[in-house]
């Protein structure tokens, strides 16, 4: 078993799904990630399985501490998402979720760039079905945009890998760096999937359009695979610090005014990725530990938040802040689980975000980067503001929308319960997570100063929210679309292309018209010279021809006789 890439368990396990009757299939789906988890656990760091082809050495399996962290959490996330989707009978989603999760796990254990590329693209192709499964025109179009961007990332990755191979003669996936063009291309490919600023908008565009369960699956894998790839290839790359800091800050502005609560979560997902990218940019052992730990806890609380909003969407049919409110009355358990997720993402002491994010912040402070540190602190306050308060407040409290629905189905509640339990467990007993991190952990999260300062930051953010609400300054939830970078390719580009098309059309019309005139002139000329009665086509009568021939023959005869 130890020579098998654990991602293949889910990928190959997806094949017989269609043949298994629904009653058994539910259990079968849940067993796969459990087996996957066990296999990851059994893998010895240092294990490498290679395969020679076309003169290249593919490392189909490469195990170390870094990949194991992602291997664990990806299997856990797959299990929780499948449990959350237990009630769902949509085979298409089950198969694509398995292949998608499996591809992400397999990519993490890929030791070379070509194998990485294969799984990288597989995550793109398999995951789009989770969006298309919503089976609406809107989802179809969103899925197409998503697919173009995701596959585009893979194409850029491949060109980078080819250049890298030409430069170095190796396809091994280790530190790459941005010194070469190949390095820059590969960084761009990773950056697209990691939702770097300006490359980010596919995330907010697509995740909220996926199915109730699809979004939960999507939230875990693509972006965190990119974080893993960045940590592997670009640790200590200075520019990532600034990219990451930008990522933590700008999405929160959008999150404050966004109405679709799943889109708010997509913005805060983007913001959390920023913390991880900063950690990678700093690149010290503590920072990389922080990134790995934060990816781990982030996957859990983000899934929990998406689950709670998914449950709301499932029961009420909407996820818009402007149409919700007062749901704590009919969905009390979901409310509590959502608040656990909110407390975790906000990094309240005793919740998972606290013990992982503080590592990154401490690492940044240790480097004496005051501006970055200040930005991250602002982003920490901001994330509590929009994810920690806004999400639960507008969905479950606020103005009572009058909606009285059933509590979420038992499987959703169970999935949320387990996820919430893990969020608190990690927060209360961080050593469990610290023990599996890539480097030895020399960090104590629970010091008086840490706890008090963090509580001050958060509670005064809550105070700001309260005061702004009391004075009616806080922007109300409005039915709206907020322009983001997608505007460039959803509006500007089509407009430019349309206008360009218009010009081409008009030029085409003019050229055709002019050509017709010219062709007409040519035809007229030909007609003049070659038409009936024209010089070139005058016919000579057969009689005169005979006369000519006879004359010629007579002349010939005369000449011969003479």
């Amino acid at each position, binding site marked *: 078993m130890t020579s098998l890439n654990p991602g293949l368990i889910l990928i190959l396990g997806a094949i017989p799904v269609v043949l298994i009757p629904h009653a058994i299939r539910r259990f079968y789906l849940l067993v796969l990630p459990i087996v996957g988890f066990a296999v990851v656990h059994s893998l010895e760091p240092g294990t490498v399985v290679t395969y020679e082809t076309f003169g290249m050495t593919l490392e189909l399996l490469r195990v170390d501490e870094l990949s194991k962290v992602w291997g664990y959490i990806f299997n856990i996330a797959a299990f929780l998402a499948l449990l959350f989707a237990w009630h769902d009978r949509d085979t298409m989603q089950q198969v694509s979720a398995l292949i998608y999760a499996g591809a992400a796990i397999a990519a993490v254990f890929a030791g070379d760039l070509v194998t990485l590329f294969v799984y990288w693209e597989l995550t793109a192709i398999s995951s789009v079905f989770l969006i298309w499964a919503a089976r609406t025109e809107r989802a179809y179009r969103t899925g197409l945009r998503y697919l173009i961007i995701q596959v585009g990332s893979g194409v850029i990755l491949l060109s980078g890998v080819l250049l890298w191979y030409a430069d170095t003669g190796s396809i091994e996936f280790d530190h790459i760096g941005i010194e070469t063009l190949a390095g820059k291309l590969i960084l761009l490919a990773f950056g697209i999937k990691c939702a770097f600023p300006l490359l980010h908008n596919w995330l907010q565009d697509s995740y909220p359009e996926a199915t109730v369960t699809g979004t939960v699956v999507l939230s875990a894998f693509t972006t965190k695979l990119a974080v893993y790839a960045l940590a592997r290839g670009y640790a200590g790359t200075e520019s990532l610090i600034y990219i990451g800091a930008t990522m933590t800050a700008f999405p929160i502005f959008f999150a404050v005014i966004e109405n679709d609560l799943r889109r708010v979560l997509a913005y805060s997902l983007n913001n959390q990725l920023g913390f991880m990218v900063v950690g990678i940019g700093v690149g010290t052992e503590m920072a990389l530990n922080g990134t790995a730990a934060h990816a781990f806890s982030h996957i859990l609380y983000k899934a929990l938040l998406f689950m709670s909003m998914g449950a709301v969407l499932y029961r009420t049919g909407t996820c818009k802040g402007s149409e919700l409110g007062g749901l704590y009355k009919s969905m009390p358990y979901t409310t509590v689980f959502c608040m656990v997720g909110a407390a975790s993402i906000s990094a309240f002491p005793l919740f998972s975000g606290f013990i992982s994010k503080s590592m990154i912040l401490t690492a940044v402070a240790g480097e004496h980067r005051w501006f970055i540190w200040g930005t991250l*602190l602002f982003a920490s306050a901001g994330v509590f503001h929009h994810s920690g308060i806004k999400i639960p407040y507008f969905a479950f409290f606020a103005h009572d929308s009058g909606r009285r629905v059933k509590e979420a189905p038992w499987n959703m509640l169970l999935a949320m319960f387990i996820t919430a339990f893990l969020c608190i467990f990690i927060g209360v007993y961080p050593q469990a997570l610290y023990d599996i991190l890539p480097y030895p952990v020399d960090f104590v999260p629970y010091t008086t100063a840490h706890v008090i300062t963090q509580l001050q930051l958060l509670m005064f953010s809550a105070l700001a929210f309260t005061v702004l609400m009391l004075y009616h300054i806080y*922007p109300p939830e409005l039915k709206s679309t*907020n322009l983001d970078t997608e505007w460039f390719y959803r509006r500007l580009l089509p407009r430019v292309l349309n206008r360009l098309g218009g010009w081409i059309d008009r030029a085409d019309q003019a050229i055709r018209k002019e050509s017709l005139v010219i062709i007409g002139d040519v035809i007229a000329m030909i007609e003049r010279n070659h038409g009936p009665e024209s010089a070139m086509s005058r016919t000579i009568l057969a009689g005169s021809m005979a006369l000519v021939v006879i004359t010629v023959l007579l002349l010939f005869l005369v000449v011969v006789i003479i």
Partner: protein
Amino acid sequence: MSEHENKIHDPKKYWLDEPRNVRKVIGAVFVVCALLFISDAFYHKHSHFAVEDWFGFYAIFGFVMCVLLVLAAKLMRVFLMRDEEYYDKDD
């Protein structure tokens, strides 16, 4: 998808329906904040930056930045907000 039965009629009164209780919650937030602010006097910070040693720095920073965040976001609405079907029209 479930049938989305969103019943409107619900005569039951909940704890938070009472404005008095909402005021209690808000009051609690103020009290907790005040206690946290004062607590800065009672422990030692292991600070990396000089600002961290200011009394109540984290509290003031959190409050001010959140207010600025919301005001800036409100301003963004002026420029960025369109109606809900914006992209659906001749997309």
